[in-house]
């Protein structure tokens, strides 16, 4: 036993303990700052970090989280923060925070120094972010943005001057004309086929041979035939020839039936021309930007751009939530491929199975940049929701400087593949003074006075998003915008009707890629706007329809003319054959009955001679 050694160990332990109490906070602070900065993509700075291993608590005086896109701004900063950790997970390398209390949270604050990370770190973060990107929400957002742009482009007031029907008609090929051409071509092919069939060498040869045979039997004169046996032979010949004619008749009849079938199918194809014409009408109207004005989509024209912009903001927020969700869950995936020198931790019991990261309760209070006071909590923020089988719940409420109330709820559920995320958000009683609801020329008003309320909700399930956004305005007074264009007839009307309009409702819904807006302003505006626009639109539509009809009628007439002549030709030929064969058959029958009579006559004479002799 070495006493010197024991003393050495005691000294080392004492020194380590002293070092721990003096330097551990700073050491942990540096490491936490580094880890959080890396996750955020910009500096995260902590002031006066405190950690107590005995109380298992920690906290800080201030934390600043820099905005990666604007390094001279903080995404948010907090005041005094405290948190309590659980011991059992901690010794298993897991961070489970029982309660995290963040106070004096402020968003979008200015920084004195840049929050940009050193270039080396930025490169690492960019590389790791390249594999991110849920994309789906982004796509939905992009689609919505495009819809908004579409609404923006429809300018009802200037529609008339934009409308140049002649140039549009020249620029496009009518699908109905193409269709008629194709039907005509099919018909031509069929006609050629039937002409080929009827004029086929074999058929003509056989028919001519039969005609010669008929000419032969026409020469038979029953009275000139002397014996009964010769007469019987003549009857047989007649029957044989008739059978041949029957066969040819059946063939011609079959041709006729088949031809009629072809004719019927060609007529059916021609019946679709009407549908094609409708498509052409719609296509040209779309090109000419002629909207179908009705009460259903008037609100879409007026509020479409503003509403899609608002719903798109929702997608931006959910995209960010998805990004941070992915960041949180990525902590877990690192485990599967151990880093060099770190090894892999194997878990043996469900009893102490914890997610890598779990904040059970996060209590927040603070202020937004516009001085809105907010307080809220986040429950079950974790890297592995499946393991704890809990969803993340976010709730907050607060007051804005104008005394309006703001509140929100979010349930982010990642427990299974079929989980559903839901969001609710509302602002009640906010001032809408100087607020512009629409950027369209159709609604050139700002609100001089009034209070607003917004209720919104969203539901996200796999790749299906349902977003609802309702706006209610009360006690509203509208005022004409200063830069509004000179008054037109329609605007004069709107000015009058808007004077008595105080309570506005706009309800927007985005579901499965489709966007719809309903508003009580529809009823107010639709009637007169329709009257005003209908006249212009009806004129434009009539012009287009007339032009299309002219072209189509010409093509249809040509087709029908061809049809009539080609059909008649074939029908005539078939009828000619039928009539001729019928006549021949009749003649054969006559000849046959004449021959049979002669047989009877000659047979009777022979019997008389036999009995009388």
């Amino acid at each position, binding site marked *: 036993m070495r006493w010197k050694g024991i003393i050495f160990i005691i000294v080392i332990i004492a020194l380590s303990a002293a070092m721990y109490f003096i330097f551990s906070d700073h050491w942990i602070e540096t490491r936490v700052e580094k880890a959080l900065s890396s996750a955020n993509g910009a500096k995260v700075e902590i002031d006066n970090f405190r950690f107590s291993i005995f109380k298992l608590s920690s906290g800080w005086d201030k934390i600043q989280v820099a905005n990666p896109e604007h390094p001279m701004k903080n995404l948010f900063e907090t005041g005094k923060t405290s948190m309590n950790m659980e011991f059992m997970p901690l010794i298993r390398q897991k961070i489970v925070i029982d309660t995290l209390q963040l106070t004096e949270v402020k968003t979008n604050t200015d920084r004195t120094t840049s929050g940009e990370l050193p270039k080396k770190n930025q490169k690492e973060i960019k590389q790791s972010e390249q594999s991110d990107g849920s994309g789906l929400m982004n796509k939905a957002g992009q689609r919505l943005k495009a819809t908004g742009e579409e609404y923006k482009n429809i300018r009802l007031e200037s529609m008339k001057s934009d409308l140049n029907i002649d140039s549009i008609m020249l620029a496009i090929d009518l699908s109905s004309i193409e269709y008629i051409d194709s039907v005509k071509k099919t018909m031509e092919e069929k006609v050629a086929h039937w002409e080929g069939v009827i004029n086929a060498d074999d058929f003509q040869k056989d028919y001519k041979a039969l005609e010669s045979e008929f000419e032969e039997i026409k020469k038979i004169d029953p009275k000139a035939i002397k014996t009964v046996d010769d007469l019987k032979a003549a009857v047989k010949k007649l029957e044989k020839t008739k059978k041949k004619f029957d066969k040819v008749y059946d063939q011609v009849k079959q041709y006729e039936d088949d031809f009629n079938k072809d004719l019927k199918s060609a007529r059916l194809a021609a019946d679709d021309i009407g549908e094609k014409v409708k498509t052409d009408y719609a296509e040209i109207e779309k090109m000419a930007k002629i909207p179908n004005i009705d009460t259903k989509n008037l609100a879409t024209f007026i509020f479409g751009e503003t509403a899609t912009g608002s719903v798109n903001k929702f997608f931006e927020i959910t995209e960010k939530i998805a990004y941070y969700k992915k960041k949180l869950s990525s902590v877990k995936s690192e485990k599967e491929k151990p880093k060099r020198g770190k090894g892999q931790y194997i*878990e043996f019991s469900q009893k102490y199975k914890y997610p890598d990261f779990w904040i059970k309760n996060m209590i927040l209070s603070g202020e937004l940049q516009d001085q809105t006071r907010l307080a809220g909590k986040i429950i079950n923020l974790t890297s592995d929701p499946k393991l704890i089988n809990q969803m993340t719940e976010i709730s907050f409420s607060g007051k804005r400087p104008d005394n309006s109330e703001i509140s929100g709820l979010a349930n982010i559920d990642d427990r299974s593949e079929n989980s559903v995320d839901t969001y609710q958000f509302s602002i009640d009683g906010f001032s809408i003074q100087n607020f512009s609801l629409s950027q369209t020329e159709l609604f050139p008003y700002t609100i001089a006075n009034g209070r607003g309320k917004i209720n919104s909700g969203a539901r996200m399930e796999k790749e299906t998003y349902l977003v609802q956004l309702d706006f209610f305005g009360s006690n509203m007074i509208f005022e004409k915008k200063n830069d509004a264009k000179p008054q037109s007839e329609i605007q004069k009307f709107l000015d009058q009707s808007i004077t008595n309009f105080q309570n506005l409702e706009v309800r927007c819904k985005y579901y499965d890629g489709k966007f719809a807006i309903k508003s009580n302003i529809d009823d107010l505006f639709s009637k007169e706007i329709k009257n005003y626009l209908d006249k212009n639109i009806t004129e434009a539509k009539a012009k287009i329809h007339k032009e299309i009809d002219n072209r189509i009628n010409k093509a249809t007439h040509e087709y029908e003319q061809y049809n009539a002549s080609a059909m008649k030709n074939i029908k005539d030929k078939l009828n000619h054959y039928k009539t001729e064969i019928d006549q021949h058959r009749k003649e054969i029958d006559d000849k046959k009955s004449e021959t049979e009579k002669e047989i009877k006559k000659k047979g009777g004479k022979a019997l008389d001679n036999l009995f009388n002799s």
Partner: protein
Amino acid sequence: MFFIKFLKKIIKALGSNASPNQLAFGFAMGMILGLTPFWNIHNLIVIFLIAIINVNISTALLALTIFGLLAPIFDGLFHVFGLSILNTGPLQGLFTGMYENTFFVLTRFNNTLVLGSFVISLAAFVPVFFGFKIFAKYYQEKLHPKVEKWKITKILKSSKIFNLLNTGYKLKN
């Protein structure tokens, strides 16, 4: 300076009258420190043992340096070995019991690298001990007189040069 001091101590220790057992024991324990991840409870126990048991600290430091440099090369091997032990069917009951015990969790036994390197270093302990013991005996009897005659040893032992280097080092800092 530390390296020269360290080298001087190693040569001195090997050439001293210290028993080969003490030298070999120190070396074998140093090997455990070198091969396994340093910040672990078992290493605290090994350090404690080195400090209180009459083993040679210089050879322990020599082994720590050598095996500490070699350990990263065998990182993959330790991980695979540790993983296979932790996945061994008959041991699951034992590991589950240990996992639910706070002390054993603190030892990080459920880490593939810690367990793999620890078991391998324990397995190597006896061969390394006897191997180094043979080397120490050979060194003391045959090699030491020759090493004493080497110029480098004389330079290292020369207090004049050592003092000169020491003064230079102090001035620099």
